[in-house]
């Protein structure tokens, strides 16, 4: 059944008539607050949306029922009436033991999945004793240098019974190999293991800048993971194509949507070029979006993402399985929107952002803690963030109905406009020769920096108000307790690394690293070689160094 087309509906009063007869006299009496209104992305917003704005909307083609292509209304026929989203709180700091304790506490508090935050040395493939790791070990996340750390991280947590998401990119295959070996030690079946590795290098070049190797060998590592998992770990999400960091770096909602999905297209193309069958690996691709502050624009973004991905997989790539058409995504509330000023306001911001993700049909969600503009969260702040999700899930009533905002004149219009914007970016990037080329040329990087600067200017000019920052400023605000991470973790991890190096079989380490180098020079699957390195307790630095020797390191040309 299609939505009635208003252009043929003579009873529908024209917007023009309303404007003339009702609006103009009202405006004459009291003008609006501003001459123009825009979203946080700078998109102009009309005063009112009516059936005329969605006159071209065809229900089956553009929306479809829930669980039906193109999945604008969601991938599950029952929405959250069946299963709620996974409440997955990103956590990690200090030593593996400290983080293990936080995980057990989050699981006890009703968290339904784990999400590992690694520290910068781990993310950059450096051991704690490397000069660049100075002051960084255990600071932004947990330090994992060898298999011994991964064993401690999941001690007492059965990997067969939980799903784990790991935010790791350039060294994703090394960390994933460690996880697989721990699962093996616990007796868990790889075939049943479920979770996600972020493994999204394109957004690192574009936004977060935690890259190690140049783009092309980095892409090969990723397609190696696709191929390995299709055979060995079939229920694992091999990548989480991430818009989150692109948005945090300053992108608009459309840029987040467009660059993320275009990254997804690039991975699919590289997978196909590597000889994989599309329907064998695409169903295991997952996505990760930001929940920023502009409520309706965000809801439209998630719904547009599902629609575009479905279309692109089915029409551009000719994927046959419905599972390849369905975009599944995780959402995190916008870290960049958190303010150091009046930090309790962040609870409210986060709740609204989380609600937009839920109304957009997210499959899993992380809510930020109120203190994260100041430090990593305290245990109390992290619990409150989880409670925020639970209140939305169980008290707000929004989970009782599938896609409650489907058919909103405003949101459906926004989807059309954002879709158009995304396809325009796709065209530009296709013409450049794909996302790898675009990234090498710095194109998305420049687009995002431009948007970031424009937004900052609008805050400076008070065109955009941020409560507590450029409006309602309180000079005498109280401070809140924060988590202070000292250098204890670094000292402990350094001592442990030394112990592992002493106890392991050095000859075995050398041999497995040699095989890794040879595999990287050839065409074999690097995952297989990495699993052997990990079993020999090779460090993340050693494994990455072996690949640095073969592939070199990427350096960005700095520009402002």
């Amino acid at each position, binding site marked *: 059944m299609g939505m009635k087309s208003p252009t043929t509906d003579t009873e529908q009063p024209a917007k023009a008539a309303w404007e003339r007869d009702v609006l103009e006299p009202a405006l004459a009496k009291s003008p609006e607050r501003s001459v123009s209104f825009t979203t946080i992305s700078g998109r102009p917003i009309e005063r009112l949306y009516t059936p005329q704005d969605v006159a071209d909307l065809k229900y089956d083609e553009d929306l479809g029922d829930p669980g039906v292509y193109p999945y604008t209304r969601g991938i599950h026929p029952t929405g959250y009436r069946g299963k709620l989203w996974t409440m997955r709180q990103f956590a990690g700091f200090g030593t593996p033991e400290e983080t293990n304790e936080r995980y057990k506490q989050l699981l006890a508090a009703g968290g339904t999945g784990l999400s590992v935050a690694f520290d910068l040395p781990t993310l950059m493939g450096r051991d704690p004793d490397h000069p660049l790791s*100075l*002051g960084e070990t255990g600071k932004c996340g947990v330090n994992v240098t060898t298999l011994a750390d991964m064993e401690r991280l999941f001690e007492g947590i059965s990997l067969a019974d939980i799903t784990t998401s790991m935010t790791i990119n350039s060294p994703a295959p090394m960390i994933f190999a460690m996880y697989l070996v721990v699962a093996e030690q616990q007796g868990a079946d790889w075939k049943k293991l479920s979770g996600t590795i972020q493994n999204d290098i394109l957004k690192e070049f574009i936004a977060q800048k935690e890259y190690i190797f140049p783009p092309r060998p980095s892409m090969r590592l990723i397609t190696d993971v696709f191929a390995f998992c299709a055979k060995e770990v079939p229920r694992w999400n091999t990548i989480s194509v991430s818009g989150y960091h692109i948005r945090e770096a300053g992108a608009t909602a459309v840029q987040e949507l467009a660059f993320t999905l275009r990254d997804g297209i690039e991975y699919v193309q590289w997978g196909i070029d590597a000889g994989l069958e599309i329907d064998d690996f695409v169903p295991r691709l997952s996505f990760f979006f930001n929940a920023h502050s502009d409520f309706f624009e965000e809801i439209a973004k998630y719904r547009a993402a599902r629609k575009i991905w479905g279309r692109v997989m089915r029409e551009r790539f000719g994927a046959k399985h419905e599972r390849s058409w369905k975009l599944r995504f995780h959402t995190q509330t916008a870290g*960049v929107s958190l303010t150091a000023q009046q930090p309790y306001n962040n609870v409210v911001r986060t709740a609204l952002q989380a609600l937009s993700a839920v109304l957009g049909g997210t499959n899993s969600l992380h809510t930020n803690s109120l203190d994260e503009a*100041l430090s990593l969260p305290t245990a109390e702040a992290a619990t409150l963030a989880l409670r925020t999700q639970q209140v939305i899930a169980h008290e707000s009533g929004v989970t009782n109905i599938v896609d409650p905002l489907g058919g909103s004149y405003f949101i459906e219009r926004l989807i059309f406009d954002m879709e158009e914007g995304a396809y325009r970016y796709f065209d530009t990037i296709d013409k450049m020769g794909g996302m790898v080329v675009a990234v090498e040329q710095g194109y998305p990087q420049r687009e995002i920096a431009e948007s970031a600067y424009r937004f900052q200017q609008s805050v400076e000019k008070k065109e955009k108000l941020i409560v507590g920052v450029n409006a309602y400023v309180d000079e005498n605000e109280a401070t809140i307790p924060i988590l202070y991470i000292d250098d204890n973790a670094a000292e402990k991890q350094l001592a442990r690394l030394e112990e592992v190096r002493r106890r392991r079989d050095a000859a075995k380490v050398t041999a497995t690293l040699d095989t890794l180098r040879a595999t990287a020079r050839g065409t074999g699957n690097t995952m297989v070689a990495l699993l052997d390195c990990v079993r020999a307790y090779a460090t993340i630095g050693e494994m990455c160094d072996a690949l640095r020797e073969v592939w070199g390191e990427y350096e960005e040309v700095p520009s*402002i």
Partner: protein
Amino acid sequence: MRKTRVIIAKPGLDGHDRGAKVIARALRDAGMEVIYTGLRQTPEQIAAAALQEDADVVGLSILSGAHMHICPRLMELLRAKGLEHIEVLVGGIIPDVDAPKLKAMGISGIFLPGSPMQEIIDFINERVRPRAEAV
């Protein structure tokens, strides 16, 4: 009179460069000459750049929590090169308890998330006197 010369640097392993790039551009638009070093600069590289560029100001963007290691090292290197006159500013996530320690080691300005660009521009303009162009 020569323009105020500012080096914006991202030390440490972190790659989140939104703040560094936005402030670099804002200072440039405010009439300063800005050199952005790019990512993952060691204190040694930053001090060398400060000397070579005859900088008036060094602005560090640090979000990772490594400031208590990076800042003392940089200040020591600047002193060793006779560059005590350079104003060193830090922007990023700096816990309250660390602020007095950073000030004590000679860091003149600490700017937390949400600091207005204008405040940073004014801060620099108040402290750096225009110098004659070197001949």
